[in-house]
């Protein structure tokens, strides 16, 4: 085992054991334990399969292995062709035209290339690397969420890094894997891109649309994680921006998953645009002949005394008369809530307090 990884292995093991001894109440999170074990597992797997080596030697060793496998496969294929030919000669008992040498060589070449491109070792490396990156993204997401919980004031700034980190991690992984395992020539790359584009254009255009939509959302940023947005009547907090879908947690606490391709083609209303607070409009419906001055004072004080108010921003009270079916005055209290998450609590608190005070002041009695 490589001494460097031995060291890491022992450090992690020591750290984990020390934690268990120190923590007599078993406070170590289940998730943390699993992450440590999975890291160890991945390290060991890499070590066993001999994949952890400097990039050059990795490529060389992969090449050597692939060549050996390719040679064996070619030899077997040649042998098989020879045997087939012999059998055919025997059965037909008539002069047979020889297989041209060029065709045989071409066949051998094709087999060589195929075995070089796809080998069990490469597949295993891809699986392990993907698993490792997937775990890393889960770990970074957990870290971002923990940080956001601890530093509530900077919550949105922290959370907006989450999708960017994930995308960058995956892009780097794919890039490194392609370069180290397949090392394609520019011609191959162009040919691959062309054929993939054609295939994807027919078969997986929706997925591609979603992926490009996701990249557009992440880098163009019409909204970010933590923002409160309204798309097609779905209003709530953006909890995740993925490569294919975006998750919104609605006010009744259900997660709505919207494909990114839909989002980029819809109108989006963003209530806080990256800010922690957002404006809340509280509507009160009162009789048309109310004492405006008195109602204004009560409505204003209902807002400024609320514990959820963001006191750094101004509160305004507006009056609108309606004469549709039944005449009424719509009082709109516009104020900012200290954190967008308490939007409904704030609206409820202000409505309740205003209604109680208006009732005590005899404002509602005018309706009867």
């Amino acid at each position, binding site marked *: 085992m490589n001494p460097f990884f031995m060291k890491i292995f022992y450090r992690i093991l020591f750290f984990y054991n020390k934690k268990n001894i120190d923590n007599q*109440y078993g406070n*170590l999170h289940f998730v943390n334990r699993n992450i440590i074990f999975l890291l160890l597992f991945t390290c060991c797997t890499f070590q066993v399969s001999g994949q952890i080596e400097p990039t050059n030697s990795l490529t060389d060793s992969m090449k050597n292995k692939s060549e050996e496998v390719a040679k064996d496969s070619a030899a077997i294929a040649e042998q098989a062709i020879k045997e087939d030919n012999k059998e055919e000669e025997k059965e037909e008992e008539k002069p047979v035209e020889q297989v041209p040498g060029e065709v045989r060589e071409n066949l051998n070449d094709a087999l060589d290339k195929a075995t070089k491109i796809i080998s069990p070792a490469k597949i295993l490396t891809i699986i392990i690397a993907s698993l490792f990156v997937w775990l890393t993204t889960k770990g970074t997401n957990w870290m971002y969420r923990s940080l956001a919980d601890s530093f509530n*004031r900077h919550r949105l700034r922290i959370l907006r890094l989450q999708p960017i980190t994930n995308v960058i991690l995956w892009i780097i992984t794919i890039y490194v894997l392609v370069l180290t395992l397949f090392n394609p020539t520019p011609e191959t790359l162009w040919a691959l891109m062309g054929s993939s584009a054609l295939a994807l254009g027919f078969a997986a255009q929706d997925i591609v649309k979603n992926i490009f939509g996701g990249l557009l959302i992440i880098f163009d940023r019409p909204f970010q994680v933590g923002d409160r947005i309204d798309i097609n009547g779905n209003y709530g907090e953006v909890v995740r921006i993925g490569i294919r879908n975006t998750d919104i947690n609605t006010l009744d606490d259900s997660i709505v998953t919207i494909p990114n391709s839909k989002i980029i083609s819809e109108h989006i209303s963003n209530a806080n645009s990256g800010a922690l607070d957002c404006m809340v409009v509280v509507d009160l419906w009162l009789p048309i002949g109310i004492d405006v001055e008195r109602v204004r004072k009560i409505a204003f*004080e209902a807002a400024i*005394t609320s*514990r959820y108010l963001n*006191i750094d921003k101004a509160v305004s009270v507006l009056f609108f008369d309606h004469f549709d079916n039944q005449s009424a005055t719509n009082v709109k209290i516009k104020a900012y809530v200290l954190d967008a998450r308490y939007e409904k609590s704030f609206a409820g608190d202000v409505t309740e307090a205003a209604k109680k005070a208006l009732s005590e002041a005899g404002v509602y009695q005018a309706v009867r």
Partner: protein
Amino acid sequence: MDFKNIFYKVLDFVTHYSKLTYEFLFVDEKGEQSTVEEVEERAEIPEAYLQRFRLHPLQDAKQLEGRDEEIAMMQRAYENWKITRSPLLIVGEFGAGMTSLLNASSAIYPHACILENKTNISNSQELVEELKKGLRYPEARTLKDLETLPKQDNEQVIIFENIERLFLRKIHGFHLLEDFLLLIHATKKDIFWVATINQYSYYYLNQVIGFGANFLSVIRLQPINNQLIEGVIQERNKGYECVFLKPGTSSGTLNQQLKNSDAFAKQQLLREDFFNKLHVFAGGNISQAMLFWKRSVAYVKEKRVYVKAYEPKPIGQLTLEELFVLEAILQHTSLSNSELYSILRNSNKGSKLILEKLMENNLLYAKTYEGSFEPEYQINLLHLNAVKAQIHGRLNRNIK
């Protein structure tokens, strides 16, 4: 500074932040809080010694230290009033020595009358009764009567302490404060009004009703100089010899330096370390500095005081409701349970339960004033910084 010291400082820094990161990532705070019960044991300390550090306002201007600038500003505001007729507002932190400053201002305002408000004033009648004393106008029955006050021979100076006592953060809770401000404006020609307010109430009232605009002169009490705080502590320890003990948690640098020092140098190092911790904790607040000292006194033996730096216990993550209660108390200096539930618009029992929990955690203490039926709950100065930090971080309030 030699290379060795730099190395130890870097090592300290790395160890400290690694520990913080480790705790942040792997230690479940709630679990630790709920399971660890520590009984705080106070060693026997003579009452006579503790009396020296009792928190009480100074009566004599000569005893007041570190407030020369504020006194000069008060003097200037008084001179300005003679031309502009504008009242003065003094804003300060809890325990910053506001009352001591007002007592000391008798040198500038010899005829001043100080109206101290320890509890909340809930109606205009109570306010009139309070003001009648200061204005020497016993016939007054309403605030309107006080506006038409007969002119006095001397220039009158009224110091109204804790103006935040005139409001309650509820609907119709600002009337009394507004009426009082109107009275100030109506009588400012003849009376130099000086009002004081705590900085949290000022922040709130200023944002929601533009309170500060009523005062042309506003003085903010600045933190007291560290040397002066050390001087005050030394003064109060007169007759005693202080022996500094090694703190419970000490840095690698300190340990290394202690190893290589003789007894005298060790004391110097420990003293320096102790006062560094005291100044970080108190931040220029004299009351917090006194509390820190009192908490640090391990024992007193034959005119020798053994001091070991106090290490405040972390208060843990408070719930949203607890933070709202603490914020309301900060905004009003102190609150009774009935006042609190009218502010938070929840049930009487609900607010009482939260108060009890906060009392249990030593974040609040209750005090019953003369003439009031209910105890008033106040923030424990020992945890003021931690509470402020959580209100700042979790409720996004711009208080620091």
